[in-house]
């Protein structure tokens, strides 16, 4: 019963929106905005037309989805490690931040498409370049949020650690990291979805497989149901990945008093 109401609560808005879209698209009959049912058909045609032994997944899934996902997760993983490590360092050292801050801000403001020529020089076309694009794009939310988190460790806790002469590694892993963790997770959540975006961007150049390139191809061929099917796939992937990350987060932040439903800002009366 409770599970059912939870499910309803979670999906009812979504369902309503889809319904509204269906009706609106039906009335408007605009080729750019096909009806969700049409999109669903196109999606099923694209990905679920395979034989039974592959769980009905079609070749497209293995040819495009799997490599894309691999690149995506690898890129995001690299960005997470680099972003958290660098962020902790920069967040705890004002001096390092002063030296590196402007250059990082500068780099952060460079649009990835402008960097394509440079990346082409530095990396080979294909996976390494796509990884570079993804990492370069999704690093920033993790980095900035980690810096912020590391910087705002409660001063009493900092002093406590200093007084007990906590060794550096233990201080970073045992104090800075946990107290920055909520902010880091905010960054990870943002960048996980962003990595899907950048996966598509990275497939603008130099690939012949991947869901991003398929999406853009459909777009260029004015195959709007196909393009929307790609968009929906991104949405599904985004939702799934974020659900997994959220589960991880709930586990990592289990110590927080607020977990389970009620947020501190909630005023119940």
């Amino acid at each position, binding site marked *: 019963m409770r599970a059912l109401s939870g499910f309803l609560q979670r999906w009812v808005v979504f369902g309503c929106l889809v319904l509204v879209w269906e009706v609106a698209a039906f009335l408007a009959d605009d080729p*750019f905005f096909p009806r969700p049912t049409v999109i669903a058909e196109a999606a099923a045609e694209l990905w679920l037309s395979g034989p039974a032994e592959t769980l009905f997944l079609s070749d497209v899934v293995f040819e495009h989805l799997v490599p894309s996902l691999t690149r995506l997760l690898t890129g995001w993983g690299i960005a997470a490690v680099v972003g958290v490590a660098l962020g902790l360092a920069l967040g705890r050292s004002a001096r390092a931040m002063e030296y590196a801050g402007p250059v990082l801000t500068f780099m952060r403001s460079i649009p990835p498409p402008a960097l*394509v*020529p440079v990346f082409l020089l530095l990396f*080979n076309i294909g996976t390494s370049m796509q990884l570079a694009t993804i990492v370069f794009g999704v690093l920033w939310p993790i980095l900035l949020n980690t810096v912020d988190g590391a910087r705002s460790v409660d001063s009493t806790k900092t002093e406590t650690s200093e007084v007990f002469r906590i060794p550096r590694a233990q201080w970073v892993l045992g104090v800075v990291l946990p107290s920055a963790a909520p902010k880091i997770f905010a960054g990870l959540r943002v960048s996980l979805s962003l990595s899907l975006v950048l996966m598509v961007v990275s497939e603008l150049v130099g690939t012949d497989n991947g869901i991003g*390139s398929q999406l853009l191809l459909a777009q260029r061929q004015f195959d*709007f149901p196909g393009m929307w099917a790609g968009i929906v796939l991104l949405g599904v992937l985004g939702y799934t990945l974020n659900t997994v990350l959220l589960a991880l987060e709930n586990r990592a932040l289990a110590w927080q008093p607020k977990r389970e439903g009620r947020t501190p800002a909630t005023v119940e009366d």
Partner: protein
Amino acid sequence: GLLGGSSEDGSASDGGTSTAPGQVEKSKIKLGLLNILDVASVHIAIKKGYFKEEGLEIEPVIIQGGAAAIPGLISGSIDITFGNWVSYFAAESQGAAKDKGGLKLISDGYQAKSDMFVIVAAPDSGIKSPKDLDGKTIAINTYKNIAELTAKATLEANDVDPSKVKFKELGFPDMEAAVKNKSVDAAFMVEPFIARSHRGSGFTTVLDAASGPTNDIPIGGYATTGDFASKNPNSVAAFQRAMAKGQKEAQDRSVVEPVLQDYAKIDKDTATLVHFGEYPTSLEASRLQRVADLMLTYQLLKEKFDVTPMIVSGSAG
């Protein structure tokens, strides 16, 4: 396909008869353009005042890449646009502009000639002849477009199995670096990149993609929506007349070169080396139908597509 093209051809070649038969409905035309060689004729026509003579004021809107052109037409932020035929046919076959009366083609723009659609390779790559491209990776600017079509057709004509060749999408400006970097084995280039790569890196031409089955293949032209064409027939006709003059002038290399340096920011040395295509003065359904048929062959279209209904012939004779 001698429907309207030849009559328009005739009127345009008279030249200079500025007795406009009807008042233009809309004098200010927002014209979508790309900064490429293909639209040199427009710039010539603007410079020489051909549009003004017809009572038109052209406001160029620079668009990057074809993805923006047709949506731009549909949204009304541009009135007429340059684009490639493949995109027009694909869009029309999907009914992209059906709310706006479909797409209408109003003027031819650019057509391939030899040495302007070529596959190049680095001198040390060992790729000398079309045969050497078998199983190799070739950079093209966009999948499922004119480049891929012509490349496949000519490869097939040279006994290379096009399904064995891998294509990778890369912007023209990035191709030279990618070839040097050995990220790809060869690249499908257009001017001015061909000239630049020949001159700068000593690349050699392996295969002319506008030869044999694709000899003189049409590339792109000017289109508008059905709604615009039916509401502004005089403006469209005026545009067609001015374009015809511009197209004609563009045949002369010495006229185009300086214009190129101007709008496409191509340096003088490169400009003198560039191989130009054809700037046809008439819009002929039969020629465009070749493109549609090629698209069908390589599955860019699902069924046979007749281009004739898309063509708006010059009304002024």
